[in-house]
């Protein structure tokens, strides 16, 4: 009797009250707690971004002073990188769907999972404390480059400690996923019967594990240098600032693959579902995730082409950087090949996936411009870099996150949103996004440097276009979120499988019961994407 009751209730209903959430070991609840926290930080970061664009609508001081602008862009960077985009997809969708996709009831180390979430919250509190204590948030940029970060009077120490704690949280999540994938796959599920989202999380987790400690210790050294005034990185007392840059990018370059790989995993799961066709080149996509993670370790020097490195070192880093394009292109070709002759169902998640492919390609190709030594000398530290980075991170990962949200919303909350509204919001988002960031690529080529609150008058027109784009983007965001919130309260029940997917997570109820499956999940005969339509 009691067993039937347990599966009648979904994971929202089994226990009530705030404590049952804050101290839960259920991976789905932890995922949702991450979701709400990360969403809140995304909105704060986006607001800061809009304020920056507003400052840049006209040359000279518009709404804030130079120092405030420096603090705003630093806080925007710290929040968006460490609190939003690094944890986003693994901590939300990874936590929620990895165990379900593997056909199990939780991650391998549930208590560690809860600890990661608490560390995330502690790190977030540290980051927010910089706002109210002393001289305000750091004004160094999110990279905390020495020697300035050792000399400025703003709250660098607190920001750096926040990044350290968030790094620890990220390490533990990665560790947990690796152990889960090794130990908890359903009986009969081999490595190549895993969904590609799981593969991408596996690659991501290794980067989290093997890159994050380096930045952790580097940031501790910044703190130590600020306390004791020892010349670790400050050249005036015998330190080497270039060494800081090396140590920082040894982590922070692989970190961009922490941000990008899970997004590619979502796309690899959305496309076969809406093309109703088995994925083209399963193994190529799986291996290319691992290849990106591997090559990603050896390219950090391309952030430092103008900082003073030997010629041969720069050439080697440039060549290695070009190598990253190969596994990335393999994925794109496989996605497009999957769509070819599929019976395409153009639902919102697929729209976001297509936008991802387009925008990620713009980001990727501009990345090749930056990887080329001669071209990089020209556009280094200009708006070209800002445009490239936002095309990859927002146009890529951000849109994949929205796509994942529209894809899995009916599973997580059991309700269906208004498809028409979702499509309209998507269209506005696409227009706003490209209007906001494409002018930055042109501005960069024209020579507008990044990280200044002011610019020369000849750049005004394109900056106005970009700022108006940021308003359109915000309208799109609000419409998208409103549509989902309305669905959360008033949406029609979605049923088990609204998209007719054969992936494992759609076999269970929506929302899933506490132990994920109300019946023993049935693995597909021919792998996770074996659709009848060949």
């Amino acid at each position: 009797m009691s067993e039937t009751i347990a599966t009648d209730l979904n994971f929202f209903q089994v226990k009530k009250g705030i404590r049952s959430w804050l101290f839960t070991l259920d991976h789905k609840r932890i995922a949702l707690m991450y979701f709400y926290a990360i969403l809140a930080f995304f909105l704060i970061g986006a607001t800061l971004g809009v304020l920056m664009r507003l400052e840049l609508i006209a040359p000279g001081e518009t709404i804030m002073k130079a120092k405030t602008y420096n603090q705003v862009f630093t806080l925007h960077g710290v929040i968006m990188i460490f609190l939003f985009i690094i944890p986003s997809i693994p901590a939300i969708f990874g936590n929620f769907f990895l165990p379900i996709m593997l056909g199990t009831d939780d991650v391998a180390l549930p208590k560690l999972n809860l600890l990661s979430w608490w560390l995330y919250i502690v790190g977030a509190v540290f980051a927010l404390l910089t706002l109210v204590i002393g001289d305000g948030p750091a004004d160094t940029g999110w990279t905390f480059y020495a020697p300035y970060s050792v000399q400025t009077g703003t709250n660098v120490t607190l920001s750096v400690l926040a990044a350290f704690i968030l790094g620890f949280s990220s390490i533990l999540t990665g560790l947990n996923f690796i152990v889960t994938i090794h130990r908890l796959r359903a009986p009969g599920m081999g490595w190549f019967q895993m969904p590609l989202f799981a593969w991408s999380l596996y690659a991501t987790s290794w980067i989290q594990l093997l890159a994050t400690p380096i930045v952790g210790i580097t940031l501790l050294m910044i703190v130590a240098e600020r306390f004791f005034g020892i010349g670790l990185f400050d050249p005036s007392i015998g330190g080497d600032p270039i060494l800081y840059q090396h140590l920082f990018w040894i982590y922070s370059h692989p970190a961009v693959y922490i941000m990008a790989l899970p997004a590619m995993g979502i796309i690899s799961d959305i496309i076969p579902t809406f093309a109703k066709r088995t994925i083209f080149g399963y193994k190529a996509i799986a291996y290319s995730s691992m290849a990106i993670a591997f090559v990603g370790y050896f390219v950090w020097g391309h952030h430092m082409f103008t900082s003073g490195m030997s010629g041969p070192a720069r050439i080697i880093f440039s060549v290695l950087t070009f190598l990253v394009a190969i596994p990335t292109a393999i994925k794109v070709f496989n996605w497009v090949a999957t769509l070819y002759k599929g019976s395409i169902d153009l639902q919102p998640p697929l729209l976001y996936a297509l936008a991802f492919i387009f925008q990620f390609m713009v980001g990727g190709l501009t990345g090749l411009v930056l990887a080329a030594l001669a071209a990089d000398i020209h556009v280094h530290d200009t708006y070209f870099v800002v445009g490239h980075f936002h095309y990859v991170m927002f146009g890529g990962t951000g849109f994949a996150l929205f796509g994942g949200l529209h894809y899995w919303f009916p599973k997580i909350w059991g309700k269906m949103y208004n498809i028409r509204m979702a499509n309209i919001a998507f269209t506005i988002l696409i227009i706003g996004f490209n209007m906001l960031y494409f002018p930055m690529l042109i501005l960069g080529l024209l020579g507008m440097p990044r990280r200044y609150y002011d610019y020369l008058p000849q750049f005004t027109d394109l900056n106005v276009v970009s700022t108006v784009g940021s308003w359109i983007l915000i309208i799109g965001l609000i419409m998208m979120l409103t549509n989902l919130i309305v669905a959360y309260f008033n949406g029609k029940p979605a049923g088990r499988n609204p998209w007719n997917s054969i992936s494992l997570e759609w076999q269970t109820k929506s929302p899933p019961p506490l132990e994920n499956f109300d019946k023993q999940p049935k693995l597909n005969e021919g792998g996770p994407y074996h659709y009848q339509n060949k």
Partner: protein
Amino acid sequence: MLPNSGHNFDPEASKLGMWLFLFTEILLFGGLFLVYFVYRKLNTEAFLQASYELNITLGTVNTVVLITSSLTVAMSITALQLGKEKLSINLLWITLLFAITFLINKYFEWSFKIEHGIFPGMEHYNGLPNGEKLFFFLYYFMTGLHAVHIIVGAIFIGVVIKKIQDGKVHQGRISLLENSGLYWHLVDLIWIYLFPLFYLIN
């Protein structure tokens, strides 16, 4: 309950998790080793001069103490595997004793330096050339971080002693002891690299 449930007791999973965590520890110190090597290359002479200030005898004693404590942890694991709980607990106490000896020794070593004014901010220290300052700072930073790991490892072992007494860790459920042993070996291993880097190279 599913056969592959995340809530099953799975010693393989926790051991795998511990090994992965040890990778991160090695990389954490790896960053420091990198910094050490770069600055040693840039300030060869000063690093050499400064290293003569360190007391090789105290360092050697501590090395012997730590290596022996690794042995007692390993013996304790074997003892529990054979079901000899009493012996296992005693060996863990001996390990803790070694850990405390190490820390006391370290305390004296640091105090001698500080008595001679060798600590960031002190007068004698401020008069040293930049390279020697860096050497001593890295010495404090790296051995200090290592000492923090000794303390964490000792707490870990203390918890395991309690759990063996309460019967929560026993012959059939040994993974917590094994994991604390793994962690302790790592702390030992890092010291084996720190010792020659600071005391012996000249």
